[in-house]
């Protein structure tokens, strides 16, 4: 077991890679009642075409990672996994995103038992024809429920508009049609590939003793017979630089139209710290440009084009990158026009040192606040680690940024050729 001390944050992180390749991280939080554990695989909805070294190339139906997540809660002994946790006072959950599937629990007592349950159920799949068919009904309801959700539709509409080939454009849950083709065999195939310990990470944070946790995980993993697995290659069709559609419209009853603007990154392929740096720089830039203390925000608010839900975000991996901005608006076309005009003015002048210092303080404050939340730490750490970057590097990276970096990023990113707009309007 090794450890790193982050003096400024008053935190120490312990870690070890198990013999079978599982990476384990423990962050003790003194005085905390709760322990929060995530067991994550680097496997999400975009991984629909892959190959394990020395094996055949495989293509699988859309929505299978999410389907698999649902099915992991079924056990051969018929006892529901939720019950196994709740009888020990733990609340359990799981979620699937574009790039990862995460199983988690939080508990204040009987941590050892709960950790054992987490490791064992995720490492013990049980799929049958019957339980797979039954799940199609439940997931079908879930897909339908999201179809009625305007916020979700405007977001997916944007991804669909920007991306022509990348599976990002496909709903994480798949479609009613795509999930109908899922069988227990396809599930086992995906399971065996992506749930190999060498593709997984365990993160435990809270009132725990790191050495005890490591010892428990070590002996738990030793008892399981994992054979080494080759590297996993993921295949993505080449994504054109241009957006697919400049304007994407969906009709759904809403009190006011919803409108999201997306700017698709031209240059991709960054990894590790370079990727993290670009992400943090862009987020800071968007805050300086569109945050609720900016003149631009206030102007558009006074024009009644935006309201409190207006916001922006940036997301990027090696394969893709995009920013988005928007919210509810009375007039989507006018909002797009006014945003472009106002942003162009800022691009022409750049940000002042003063504004930069203030925005940076805010980001640093936000980061430190996040360290109060075991959930945020676990999720952000894992997400960063799977992208070969380090959550605990964020503070030093922020502190190394200059107003010139952010201005350069502003000029580079605000390229209207890369714009796609998604709107939801009433029928």
């Amino acid at each position, binding site marked *: 077991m090794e450890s790193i001390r982050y003096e400024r944050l008053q935190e120490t992180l312990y870690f070890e890679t198990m013999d079978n390749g599982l990476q384990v991280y423990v962050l003790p939080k003194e005085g905390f009642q709760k322990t929060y554990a995530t067991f994550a695989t680097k496997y999400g909805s975009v991984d629909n075409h892959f190959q394990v070294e020395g094996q055949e190339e495989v293509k699988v139906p859309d929505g299978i990672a999410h389907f698999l997540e649902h099915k992991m809660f079924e056990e051969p002994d018929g006892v529901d996994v939720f019950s196994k946790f709740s009888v020990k006072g733990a609340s359990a959950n799981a979620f699937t995103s574009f790039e990862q599937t995460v199983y988690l629990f939080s508990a204040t007592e009987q941590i050892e038992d709960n950790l054992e349950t987490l490791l064992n159920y995720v490492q013990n799949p049980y799929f049958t024809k019957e339980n797979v068919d039954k799940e199609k009904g439940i997931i079908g309801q879930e897909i339908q429920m999201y179809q009625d959700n305007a916020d979700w539709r405007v977001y997916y509409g944007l991804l669909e508009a920007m991306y022509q080939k990348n599976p990002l454009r496909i709903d994480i849950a798949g479609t009613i049609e795509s999930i109908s083709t899922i069988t227990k065999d396809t599930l086992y195939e995906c399971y065996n590939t992506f749930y190999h310990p060498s593709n997984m990470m365990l993160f435990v944070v809270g009132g725990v003793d790191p050495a005890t946790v490591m010892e428990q995980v070590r002996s738990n993993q030793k008892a399981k017979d994992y054979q080494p697995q080759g590297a996993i290659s993921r295949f993505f069709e080449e994504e054109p630089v241009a957006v697919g559609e400049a304007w994407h419209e969906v009709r759904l009853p809403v009190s006011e139209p919803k409108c999201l603007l997306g700017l698709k990154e031209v240059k991709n392929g960054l990894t590790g710290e370079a990727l993290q740096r670009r992400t943090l720089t862009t987020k800071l830039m968007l805050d300086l440009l569109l945050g609720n203390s900016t003149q631009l925000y206030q102007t558009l608010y006074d024009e009644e084009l935006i309201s409190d839900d207006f916001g922006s975000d940036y997301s990027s991996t090696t394969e893709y990158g995009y920013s988005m901005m928007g919210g509810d608006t009375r007039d989507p076309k006018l909002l797009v026009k006014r945003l472009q005009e106002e942003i162009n003015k800022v691009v022409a002048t750049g940000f002042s040192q003063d504004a930069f210092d203030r925005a940076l*303080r805010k980001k640093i404050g936000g980061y430190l606040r996040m360290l109060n939340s075991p959930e945020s730490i676990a999720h952000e750490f894992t997400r960063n680690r799977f992208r070969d970057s380090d959550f605990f590097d964020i503070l030093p990276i922020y502190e190394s940024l200059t107003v010139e970096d952010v201005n350069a990023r502003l000029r580079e990113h605000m390229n209207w050729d890369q714009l796609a707009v998604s709107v939801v309007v009433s029928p």
Partner: protein
Amino acid sequence: MNKTGFERGEVNGIRVHVMPTTRFKTFAVSLYMGTPLAEDTVTPTALIPFILRRGTAKYPETTQFREALENMYGAGFGFDVYKKGDYQMVQFRMDTINDSFVSADESLLKQSISFLGDAVTNPVLENNAFREKYVTAERENVRKRLESVVNDKIRYAAERCIQEMCKDEPYRLNALGQLSDLDQLNGANVYERYQQWLENSTMDLYVVGDTTLDEVLELVSSQFARKTNTLHAYKISIPRSAGAEVKHIVEKMEISQGKLNMGLRTPITYGDNRYASAWVANGILGGFPHSKLFTNVREKESLAYYVGSRFDPYKGITTIQSGIEIQNFDKALNIIKEQLAILQAGEISESEISQTKAMIRNDLLESRDSAYQMIGYDFNGRFADKDRPVEQLLSEVESVTKEQIQTAASVLTLDTIYFLTTEQKEA
């Protein structure tokens, strides 16, 4: 120090509650202001915090107000307007980094309380009224929010069910007020309401962080200018009983998933000795993934993606909500009614009881890791005028018997069934 961990004092008619602790990297500040929910004041009262967050005498422009927050390392400033029993609550929150992690010129706690005090008691005025420009803009903001309820069908159905159920009680009102009142509101009449509100609200101010009661009392006494020093206690009303006949409401809208909601009355409130039993009973019915509703409606019958129940001990209402396929309405309704009847008949297994108790215990223990949750828990006791430290509730829950659960469930009476369905009823 008492069993709750909060030290208490009173100044300017404000109850002050402080928990000195070094466990968090932040100071959490929360101010509760409650006035009776009433038709003629609900809308102007709801508008007040929206106007207050636009500017103070010190920072009259909204951009200045928000820049000041950014300079305090991005201090969080937020508010909520909601119903608690028959009260309309306005709650302000601030959270700031503990100075020891950053280099601040002046104590960030002092800056926070002074900022909050200014925001609440010293707004920017013009001709002895609120600034008209802010009133107009925020009136439109509130209008949009009220209109947007329909966007989220889950929330919409829940709200409509309560409206129908509480037709002739103030509780039917949305905490944000009524659309029909908005047009008549202006800088003068909202300011008038503001002055009454500031004088008549029951005020509770909480701080959790590295500080002392004396420090906070001194800050509050100098930063919260208030004309009165009278403390207005909350008055709790007795819950109503269900109508003689169950109300059936069907509403049509263009949706793909139906929403079935039910409202039930219970005489058990937070101050009642049966509170712990009622909480466990709700947990067994629909509070958790192992509950009767979830396992029977979703897992066994695949009828719904979500189904659960919520117990509101301040109003004496339990609600059941589910998302179902339109054609499954009768089937889902019957299963839900059947599960309720089973619970009321005392068909409760030992494992249902022990799992539910373990989950509630975990929720209670976990709440101690969040400053705002500890504040929220403590405030419940102040609101209901019932001292019940976490330790006590833990042991009350532990000792609840099957008979007590049955009794608490038996007093639940179905009042209203609400179904949101599609325009075209499929055959």
